């Protein structure tokens, strides 16, 4: 019995080790390994159906893993009953108990653990989410945003070692969503619990999390700090799923010191070796994908730009389309080699707007680009429009 009491009080980092879940012959989560440091805000980001909920359900004990292990600190909880784990979940649909008041909903977990005087803790939790005034109402009498906060309080009041949040903001409109993101982040900092936040909104993941894991088809494509994922994606999926990227194929000519000399239909250029993603081959003739974020490219009318020396890599082209977005203008530029390159230019001066069909020069610093393995789908992760998903 001593072992069991240990598990409910387990704390430390959360480890998922080679975790696999199959439904029949479909593998929803495939040999997934990750470590979530205690007290951190961890986001699991990925498109619909990639296995996020399944992963969370294995951590909470509602789904039994086909293979692999789950540990919190030293305690192995892989096959422990859900009610024995120091893990609580904020469900995708809240799952508030409709026949109980808000107060009783929040008190539920504490009472089940046999804690006698729950009043102060419940009141504090309701205060934290600023809903003290509705404590005696039933869940159906609250707005969606309020219900979401109650679901959060109901989980947080137990001070679990790990708090799982399954797209808790999915049902909220954009404004409330942004507001709740800040609130969640504030609460996490205040109570210092480990948060695992599942979302398919990349902006949400990047603004809130210390560490983001990008998941696709049951595996983790890349994991790291938001800036690291954004600046140095490892795969085409990550490059396209997090923000936008211009990706174009090129071949390796040679390695020259710290630089990689590459060639594409628009000419040859250099990229630093330090900007290479996972599994990139530097053999002569190897195929790679070169990526540059649209906002890192400088666009200028060709005659003006040609006067000065080109700073870094450049390519010339023709503006095919422009759209004015307020803070910036988006240009689509076609290169002589047939590539379409997207550019976001800050609207510093509206006279600078370049009309369609103007000849332009695009320049970017090699250190701002990245080089990926060329043997992957260049379109991976691209059709998922994060704004469309916010609505769904």
């Amino acid at each position: 019995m001593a072992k069991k009491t240990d598990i409910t009080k387990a704390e430390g980092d959360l480890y998922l080790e080679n975790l696999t879940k199959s439904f029949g012959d479909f593998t929803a989560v495939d040999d997934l390994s990750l470590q979530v440091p205690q007290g951190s805000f961890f986001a699991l980001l990925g498109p619909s159906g990639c296995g996020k909920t399944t992963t969370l359900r294995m951590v909470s004990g509602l789904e039994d893993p086909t293979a692999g292990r789950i540990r919190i600190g030293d305690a192995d909880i892989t096959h422990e009953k859900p009610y024995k784990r120091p893990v609580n979940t904020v469900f995708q649909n809240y799952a508030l108990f409709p026949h109980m008041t808000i107060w009783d909903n929040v008190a539920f977990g504490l009472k089940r653990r046999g804690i006698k005087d729950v009043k102060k803790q419940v009141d504090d939790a309701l205060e934290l989410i600023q809903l003290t005034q509705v404590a005696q109402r039933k869940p159906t009498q609250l707005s969606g945003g309020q219900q979401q906060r109650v679901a959060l309080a109901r989980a947080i009041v137990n001070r679990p070692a790990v708090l799982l949040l399954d797209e808790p903001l999915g049902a909220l409109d954009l404004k409330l969503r942004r507001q709740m993101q800040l609130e969640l982040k504030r609460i996490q900092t205040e109570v210092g619990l480990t948060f695992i936040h599942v979302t398919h909104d990349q902006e949400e993941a990047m603004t809130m999390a210390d560490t983001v894991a990008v998941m696709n088809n049951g595996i983790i494509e890349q994991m790291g700090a938001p800036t690291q994922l954004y600046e140095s994606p490892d795969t085409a999926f990550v490059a396209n799923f997090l923000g936008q990227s211009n990706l174009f194929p090129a071949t390796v000519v040679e390695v020259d010191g710290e630089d990689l000399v590459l060639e594409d239909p628009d000419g040859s250029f250099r990229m630093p070796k330090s900007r290479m993603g996972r599994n990139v081959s530097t053999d002569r003739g190897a195929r790679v994908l070169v990526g540059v974020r649209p906002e890192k490219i400088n666009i200028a009318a060709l005659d003006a730009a040609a006067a000065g020396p080109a700073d870094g890599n450049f390519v010339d082209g023709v503006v095919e389309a422009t759209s004015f977005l307020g803070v910036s203008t988006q240009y689509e530029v076609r290169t002589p080699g047939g590539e379409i390159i997207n550019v976001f230019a800050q609207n510093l001066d509206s006279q600078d707007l370049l009309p369609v069909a103007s000849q332009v020069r695009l320049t970017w610093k090699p250190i701002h680009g990245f080089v990926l393995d060329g043997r992957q789908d260049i379109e991976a992760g691209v059709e998922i429009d994060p704004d469309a998903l916010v609505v769904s």
Partner: protein
Amino acid sequence: MSTSTGPAAGASAPVDTRPSAGQRFSAWFGRNAIKIYAFFAFVYLLLPVAYTFAFSFNDAGRTNLVWQGFTLENWLNPCGAPEVCGSVVNSIVVAAVVTAMATLLGTLIAFALVRHRFRGRATTNLLIFLPMATPEVVLGSSLLALFLNILIPLGFWTVVIAHIMFCISFVVVTVKARLASLDPRLEQAAMDLYATEWQAFRRITLPLVAPGIAAAALLAFSLSFDDFIITNFNSGQFTTFPKFVYVSATRGIPPQANVIATAMFIIALAIVLISQFAGKRKREA
């Protein structure tokens, strides 16, 4: 000017701006049709009850078919006629035992059918409907044949067994409907919040399904209390209230039967009103 009262009358005389009597009647009728319909429906439904109620005050003597004068005697002495109260008590005891058993078994079956996948589940679902679809005469006579064949003496227990059999179906159907609308994630959320399987059932599932179970129990009680055909086949010398009324009909139903029936009606009405009132209070709280 035509005297037709249909809408065509108005359409055929667009010149005359004053509405004709027919038009006025049809407009009035249009506004009040539902009320009129409801009035006649209630008269139709309540007339027998009113009749029964009135004749419970009849100073009947031997037969309660003709009005012979007002008396409170029947109400003051409801057990005055032989066997009336005995049969009522029998019916209540039978209905109570049947309700308890049928509700328990039926609820368990409903849980099994909704929550578990097992072989023969589809067949069970179908079989559950059979007692409801089969004519009572057939059920009653087949059961009688069964009891006679396996030499079970007819009486209280055969009536109870027969009633449980057909009440279970209604309980299963009622509870199943309630259970199917229950989100299984609520139980999962409870288990995530440290409730064991049993606690999750007791604190979440049971309270949420309880209204369905209560409705099923009331249904079972009234079905059992009310049943005559199956009871008549399988009761032997044992007398329930419906059977008593039927049997005494040949020699004149005593006014005490009206008293019992009226009391039953009032009690049922009171239960409905109280539960409605309680439900409203609960929603507003």
